[in-house]
């Protein structure tokens, strides 16, 4: 019977345990106060029920100490729960630096996933057990929200920018993925599954799937195909900033503003190059709005991210540079 009548969601990450501990503690506190008020209300309503038509209540002077007690005690409890909740929240959105990055593109009404080695999936996503997995997500149309109840993680997926979320699955199995932000007619069909596999099985699975070039390799190819290297070249003839070692650094704009070169900045610079021009450079770059798909933009970003400090090292494998990625504030 309980199969069709669960009262509690599956728990597949250590983080889920943190959320549950917080939730059940607060649920206990809530149950206590609800029961207290309910008991007092029912008890008083019976104990002091009206016995004669002309009876009136016996007013008492409100005690200041009593008012303070029932203001301060809830306040302290609430601030405690707030602090605990904030800790869990920060953990949810601050991925460890070594987390492996995957890309998610959402559109009405499907989820598209890309593995670092290039494998693509739609609505189903395979990840290895015990790996810190960070998702960099964007939407091609409206706002969606990536929600895996068994992992207790959720993050809105926005058009025109990147958001991220991470998890470390600690239980093998297949878990439900929902779109949690209403996104139009088939919102309730925008679901999928996440399959957590033993690392060895995952490797085997990866090898089985038809594999294109890795994300970084696709980005490199695109970088050349779009002739980005005409201006962004690692020598003195460069008319545009040298991209090597730029990712994760701060740059000064023409306006004097200091910005961090991250995925969102590169994306903005591709689509609206003159808006955030680095100091000392002329607005020469054309916009690539409409010429690059969301996947292609992500490939270019991955490629730029993979570029080491030295131009020669540009073919370094992408994994090793991952720790430089600053997790975005969410």
């Amino acid at each position, binding site marked *: 019977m309980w*199969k*069709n*009548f669960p009262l*509690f*969601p599956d728990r597949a990450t250590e983080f889920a345990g943190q*959320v549950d501990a*917080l*939730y059940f503690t607060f649920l206990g506190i*809530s149950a206590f106060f*609800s029961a207290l*008020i*309910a008991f007092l*209300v029912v008890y*008083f*309503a019976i104990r*002091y029920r*009206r*016995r004669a038509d*002309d*009876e*009136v*209540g016996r*007013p*008492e002077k*409100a005690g200041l100490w009593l*008012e303070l007690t*029932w*203001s301060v005690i809830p*306040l302290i409890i*609430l*601030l405690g729960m*707030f602090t605990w*909740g*904030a800790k*869990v*929240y920060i953990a*949810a959105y601050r991925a460890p630096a070594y987390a492996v990055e995957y890309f998610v593109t959402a559109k009405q009404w499907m989820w598209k996933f890309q593995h670092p080695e290039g494998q693509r999936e739609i609505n189903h996503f395979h990840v290895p057990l015990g790996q810190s997995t960070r998702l960099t997500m964007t939407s091609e*149309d*409206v706002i969606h929200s990536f*929600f895996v*109840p068994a992992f*207790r993680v*959720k993050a*809105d997926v*926005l*058009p*025109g*920018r990147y*958001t991220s979320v991470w998890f470390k699955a600690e239980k093998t199995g297949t878990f*439900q993925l929902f779109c*949690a*932000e*209403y*996104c*139009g*007619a088939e*919102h*309730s069909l925008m679901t999928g599954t996440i399959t957590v596999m033993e690392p060895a099985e995952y490797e085997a699975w990866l090898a089985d799937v038809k594999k294109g070039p890795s994300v970084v390799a696709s980005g490199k190819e695109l970088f050349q195909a779009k002739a980005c290297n005409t201006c962004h070249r690692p020598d003195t003839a460069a008319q545009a900033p040298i991209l090597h070692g730029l990712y994760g650094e701060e740059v000064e704009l023409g306006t004097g503003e200091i910005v961090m070169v991250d995925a969102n900045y590169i994306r903005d610079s591709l689509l609206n190059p003159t808006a955030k021009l680095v100091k000392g450079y002329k607005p020469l770059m054309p916009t690539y709005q409409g010429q690059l798909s969301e996947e292609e933009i992500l490939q270019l970003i991955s490629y730029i991210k993979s570029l080491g400090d030295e131009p020669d090292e540009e073919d370094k494998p992408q994994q090793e540079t991952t720790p430089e990625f600053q997790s975005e*504030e*969410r």
Partner: protein
Amino acid sequence: MSTTVTTSAKRLNYLNVDHGMKSWLLTKDHKRIAILYLISLSFFFLIGGLMAVFIRIELATPAGDLVEPDTYNRLFTMHGVLMIFLFLIPGVPAVLGNFLIPIMIGAKDLAFPKLNLASWYVFNAGGLFMIWAMLHGGVDTGWTFYTPYSTAFTDTHVIATALGAFIAGFASIMTGLNFIVTIHRMRAPGLTWFRLPLFVWAHYATALIQVLGTPVVAITILLVAAERLLGIGIFDPALGGDPVLFQHLFWFYSHPAVYIMILPAMGVISELITAFARKRIFGYKFVAFSSVAIAVLGFLVWGHHMFVSSQSVYAGILFSVLSMLVAVPSAVKTFNWTATLYQGSISWQTPMIYALGFLGLFVIGGLTGTMLATLGIDIHVHDTYFVVAHFHYIMVGGAIMAYLGGLHFWWPKMTGRMYPVFWSKISAGLVFFGFNLTFFPQFILGYLGMPRRYHAYPEEFQVLNVLSSAGATILGLGYLIPIIYFIWSMRYGERAPANPWGAYGLEWEIPSPPTTYNFEETPVVTREAYDYTGIEEKSVA
């Protein structure tokens, strides 16, 4: 106890002083306008309720088999839009506030009677826009109108519906303005601020939000229209806009709007509990000022709707702690109401059953609200049925319970008739039980992960959904019974005396129903609100 009402049926009152459509449609009497609002609101409530019926039938089975997904999306959108903009926001203030505030402060009418009538017309004009939109295919964005879906993707009637909310918003501003001026300028001699009934305090706080908050949603709606009609990029990233900006603007009004719904309801509860405990409220000043505190703090917590929206972690932390603070004045009120019962003389009349029911449901709604304000919990339950259950506990379990309790309390004053006690108690019980059965399972569904606004859902959620739909059937019955006996009572109900409950307050010192100008002579107030111990000496005098 009270002076017997003259047995002559000829006594003139606000209802029989004039007859005919024109005398109603051009009335400047706040009491008649309250009745006009009651009729409009009941109409919109019934339509909004009908949508809920379809929603709950659809959700009785996991497959989306009753209506098309498009239809379902329009149903829950129109349910939310109608219930919020055309029922809950005007709700208590437009009906009970309009009727009672002038009487409670010893005035002949509101400060601006014509503005009051105008607000009713403006309100209905807004309502007509929405009904027009509904009849021409409706709108499917959810009542939240999130961009860029609402501005660039849906082809449903966003503009007409949003314009309806825009227009109805002006009615809300007019009512708020009228209340503020009236409460400041028209109190009877001797009626100091701290002698005011708490109903008036609550409406004063509400009016502040109506006047300060509503313009923001009006501006937001205009921006949506500018983007949708003229293609000016404000929210759509494809046009260089920011979709999250919309959420900030929307919730800057729509969170305080929750307090527009619940504060007047809290005012009603203060009146009911004191009247049926026949006792001065415990901690008058704390209850009064907590309304103001809620109104002010309510403007600072909008970001708690956006914890997973990509808002910065620091903003999330700030909005979380501020949301905890706004819970404290609500807790203060609850404890004071409970303490008022202590050593009272408690009568289990129908309005009191609603008030006690409110206490239970509001506590659950409020505590689950603080759970949602806890960042670590909200990540998981945001946009799930947990949220749906929480806000229905506040809006239906809180605001509608109080609205019904208030109607049952002041119905004799408004119509001069009593309703059948037996049926009213039965329906109050059905409402309480049906409500809990409808919405309590949704908390569990939410924690299990069922997202809101889902037309179809995985099979393991079915049992809880069936329970919820069963509860909704009982709740619906609980709402239909009062509609029947209220209408019945207007013709066949027993005539009500001036003070059927033995309650203390200016409204109970004038006949039921009152005359057009309420008081023959301006009353002079010499005692505090809810001064029940003085009642005996008074009736002797």
